[in-house]
């Protein structure tokens, strides 16, 4: 069975270890602004919400791409940006209704979570198990994904 990132915001302390680990792994430098996973603080409630691509079935980003630069990794289920093909048009960034694929002006291409090929650094770096990589159908994203899928036309990526 394919694995998914399981996010438990209740456990997140906002330490940003995941953002660090992600940017080091993906960009080769400590640069949280380039992280594929983001921690959103809700100061009033004292809550931190780790947020990244759910590798949703509809893959709006993938279908919107005009040059086939986002492809399905059949092994991990991740929708991966193929850097050599990406022209940086950003159509995917406005198509993903979750806002989880972003433009990186330095590279002129887009970045999104690719599950690190099946061994996600964020999950390994998280000291509180707020992010885990598990065999699970129910990752807490399902509810959110389902509501988007109902409202916005899409189709499976495979």
């Amino acid at each position: 069975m394919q694995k998914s990132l399981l996010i438990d915001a209740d456990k997140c302390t906002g330490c940003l270890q995941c953002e660090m680990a992600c940017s080091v792994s993906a960009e080769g430098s400590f640069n949280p602004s380039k992280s594929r996973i983001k921690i959103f603080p809700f100061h009033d409630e004292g809550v931190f919400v780790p947020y990244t691509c759910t590798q949703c079935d509809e893959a709006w980003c993938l279908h919107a791409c005009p040059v086939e630069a986002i492809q399905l990794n059949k092994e991990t289920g991740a929708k991966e940006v193929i850097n050599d093909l990406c022209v940086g048009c950003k159509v995917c960034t406005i198509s993903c209704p979750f806002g989880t694929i972003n433009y990186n002006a330095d590279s002129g291409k887009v970045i999104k979570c690719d599950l690190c090929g099946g061994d996600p650094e964020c999950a390994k770096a998280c000291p509180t198990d707020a992010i885990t990589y598990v065999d699970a159908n129910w990752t807490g994203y399902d509810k959110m994904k389902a509501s988007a899928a109902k409202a916005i036309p899409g189709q499976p990526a495979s």
Partner: protein
Amino acid sequence: MHHVIIGAGPAGVVAAETLRKADPSAKITILGKEKEPPYSRMAIPYKLKGKIEEEGMYLRHDTEHFKALDIDIRQVNVDKINSDSKTVDLSDGSQQGYDKLLIATGATPLTPPVKGMELPGVHKSWTMDDMRGIESLATKGAKVVQIGAGFIACTNMEGIVARGVELTIVEMEDRMVPRMMDEIAGNMIKDWCIDQGVNVLTNGMVTSIEESSNGASRYQVTVKQKGAVAAAEPVAEAKESGGILSAIKDALFGGGSAVPETAPVSDEVKLDADLVIVATGVRANTGFLEGTDIAVDQGILINENMETSVADIYAAGDCAQGKDFSTGQQEVHAIQPVAVEHGRFAAQNMLGRSVENPGSLNMNVLDAVGLISCSYGLWMGVEGGDSVKVVEKDMWRYLNLQFDGDVLVGSTAIGTAQHMGAMRGLIQMRVNLGEWKSILMEEPTRVMEAYLALTQSTVIK
């Protein structure tokens, strides 16, 4: 079952692939008039920029892709549809029968009624051939005049500017991207472009393109400009500052320091040009439907099942006028993501599944020589709806949210390229913002927070 698709752009190709996935045995034929393998015309600016080779513009990169799917692509033009006999007439003199027919013929750029449009250095920016023509003339230092500053014209600008040309944009309206951006946003983009060294003439109408005899360039482009007096004001400053202001001055007065301070202000401007790019809008490709019963307005009228007014004939993409998500009316969208959505819905209905298109959301993202902007849905607002905006001119940032009751129905953003898609989520899921509405009215930049709080209610109480 034989599915025949006219047009090998994104709409036609996605329809063919969707048909194949659902029906391994159906016969699928794409009839497309262009000689290249199916490609994406919206990749033109990136080829001009040198980011990719021509192959990088192809819709599918595996050369065996269509063969493997047993999708037959024929390079031929469809001249006529005979719905009575369920056949189409082809440019090679033959006929092709169909059971279900999809029209995915896209659009064609308009040719404004201007003298000189037929000159060899005047190009559209629409096909692979157009792109090659532009490439050959838009060399370093070349003087380029682009007519039009609409969305497609502006995406194209990125590619042209990167080639090191001297670019002047002439736009009839008072701002850039007038049909995608409000006045504040359109003018902010204009000011940015001017800052980047692009000469922008708004309220300008090109009246002729002629062979030039002044030796400075190949052509001379004549522009009639409304309100040239106001536009000419900075000229006095230009004396000291040079740079872009003197470029404007050159543009307005046809050149150089020879212009006396007291020069009479004329509303006619002459521009030097080695290449003229025409990007003044497009029209749906429906001409070949004349004489059929297929109803056409701005585009081919289709219902929620993507059907035209004639049985077993469907339409998708830039050529189609289908349901809009925001207004519920039939509109031509003419954007890539909608072409793909259309193609998929059309295929599902051609398979006899009656899948209704809930409506396509208008959305655009633009990179105007480095300034990123996007707009969604009813960015111009609705009657009786609230709206809020933050303008940060010195930061090149702008955000405008439009509400209908407590639902976000449209937005414009400049200068923030992160998590833009969340606005699509809020709009298209018709999320009731509840108490977040008043928070956003106070602090619109917290839109991502609102999105997370409202869609991830499992984690944020």
